[in-house]
């Protein structure tokens, strides 16, 4: 029991990926995630965060290293994992209603149980009233909630969030952050959030993994020991939050500057 508890839900062990020899994306990316832990991955834009996520989801196989789930390797996208993509309008199916979209991944189970779980997921993201509409009839925030419901309805152990709040307005983003934190805590989900928003990472996560510029390596892992539940006002005003935010921000900015310098160098040649 004790051993099983300590087995990480996800281990990245020196994962490397290159689209070609000249374009390495990931190099020796290593970190691990405990069950129920909320990990946020930040890094300069274009550093390979999304590629890393695709390797974790087995949408892509890494060239080097291994991705382990409870100590095991895996091939195709496994059933214990689900993803919310940034561009909800490209991942929700326009020919299905909100309810049908949410139930899309639930097959081969009893119809009644299926309906029940879809209703639960819809109510968890506050979309019961819009269940029979098409996703394109909804606002961006509602569409992203629909995508979130579709991901949690399959009861994954690990939820991957690929910049899920990047395409919505500021107020909606805040509401979505609270909703996601709430759902992940209630379901004791392990969550891996990829974001370029440092405030968001520090505010939501238990651990922030800072990636370097391309090829991405882990620069530092920072434990975020802010108390739960977290509040958009009080947590973000606390000295501890500001200290952590300062630290992560400095690391990312340093990487971004290195990246900019590299770009100028390349353009000079």
């Amino acid at each position, binding site marked *: 029991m004790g051993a099983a508890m300590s087995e990480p839900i996800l281990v990245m062990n020196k994962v490397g990926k290159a689209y070609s020899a000249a374009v390495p994306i990931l190099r020796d990316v290593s970190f691990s995630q405990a069950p129920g832990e909320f990990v946020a991955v930040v890094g300069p834009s274009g550093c390979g965060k999304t590629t890393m996520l695709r390797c974790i*989801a087995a*949408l892509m196989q890494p060239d080097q290293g291994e991705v382990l789930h409870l100590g095991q390797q895996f091939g*195709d*996208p496994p*059933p214990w*994992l*689900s*993803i919310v*993509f940034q*561009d909800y309008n*490209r*991942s929700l*199916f*326009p*020919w299905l209603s909100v309810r049908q979209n949410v139930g*899309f*991944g639930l*097959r081969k189970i009893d119809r009644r149980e299926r309906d029940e779980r879809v209703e639960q997921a819809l109510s968890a993201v506050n979309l019961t009233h819009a269940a029979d509409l*098409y996703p*394109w009839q909804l606002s961006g925030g509602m569409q992203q909630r629909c995508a979130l419901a*579709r991901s949690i309805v*399959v009861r994954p152990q690990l939820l991957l969030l690929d910049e899920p709040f990047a395409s919505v307005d500021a107020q909606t983003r805040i509401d979505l952050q609270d909703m996601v934190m709430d759902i992940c805590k209630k379901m004791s989900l392990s969550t891996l959030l990829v974001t370029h928003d440092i405030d968001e990472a520090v505010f939501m996560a238990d651990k922030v993994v800072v990636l370097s510029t391309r090829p991405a390596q882990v620069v530092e892992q920072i434990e975020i020991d802010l108390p739960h539940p977290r509040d958009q006002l009080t947590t973000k005003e606390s000295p501890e939050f500001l200290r952590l935010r300062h630290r992560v921000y400095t690391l990312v900015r340093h990487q971004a500057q290195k990246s900019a310098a590299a770009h100028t160098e390349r353009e000079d040649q």
Partner: protein
Amino acid sequence: MEGARVTFRSDTVDAPAPNILTWLFRRVGSLNELLKISPRLGVLVKGAAGVAGAILIWELIRALRIVDPRDLPAFLAIFRTALQGLWGGELAVAIVATIGSWAPGLFIAAVLGVAAGIALALMPRLEVATRPLLEFLRPIPSVALIPVALLVLGIGLQMQLFMIAFASIWPVLFSTKAGVESVDPRFLETGRVLGLGKAARMARIVLPSTLPFVATGLRTASAIALVLAITVEMLTGRPGIGFYIENVRLNGLITEMWAAILVTGVLGYLVNALFMALERIALPWSPENRER
């Protein structure tokens, strides 16, 4: 219902009408309001105005004798003849015959076009191998193949169906192929993450997202099929509206000829309207059919 009626009455009866000009302004004003409230009605009214204008120009050409009036009967005469022909006349028989070859010809084109479009989109090697052939066949005017079809298949339904299907398969084929090729890869990734195998992704993602493309291809093909059905009838004497037009022309029945042409135009319009309506009903989610 009753309330609306009362308002209406008070509006017309109680309204002060000092002179005809204010009354006219009121009328025009309310018509404008009506058109604004219902844009669909506005479209209808404007379309009707266009048709009325065309009839007016027709009558003007007759009155000014730009064309010999014997070749250009009065519109009303044409219209009356068309109605008579449709009401149990020869024209009705001809239309039924034309539709009788148009529909199966289009059906063949649809089945083969969709199948070939999907196959070409999914099998890049097949696509590369057949590309020169298709690019060679496609631009050939179908009418130019009629002599060949006559030689090989002779005069008959078989030959007519071949011509209709050959001409109308292209929009279906290329539209379907484009549809399959343009399926958003993110849709497919979403399917993979949700545990769909290759066949399930095909049936539940590729197919539905291709349907609007198929519908557009079919609508284009339906018009082409009609053109070919009528052309073959004219050239080979197959029964139908094409043959009817040619026949009455040879017999100097000019009003009957124009009546048949008018009916053909209306038929084309209705076929297009039918396919658009089917699209709206079957694919309410497709970007073309979404509300606003």
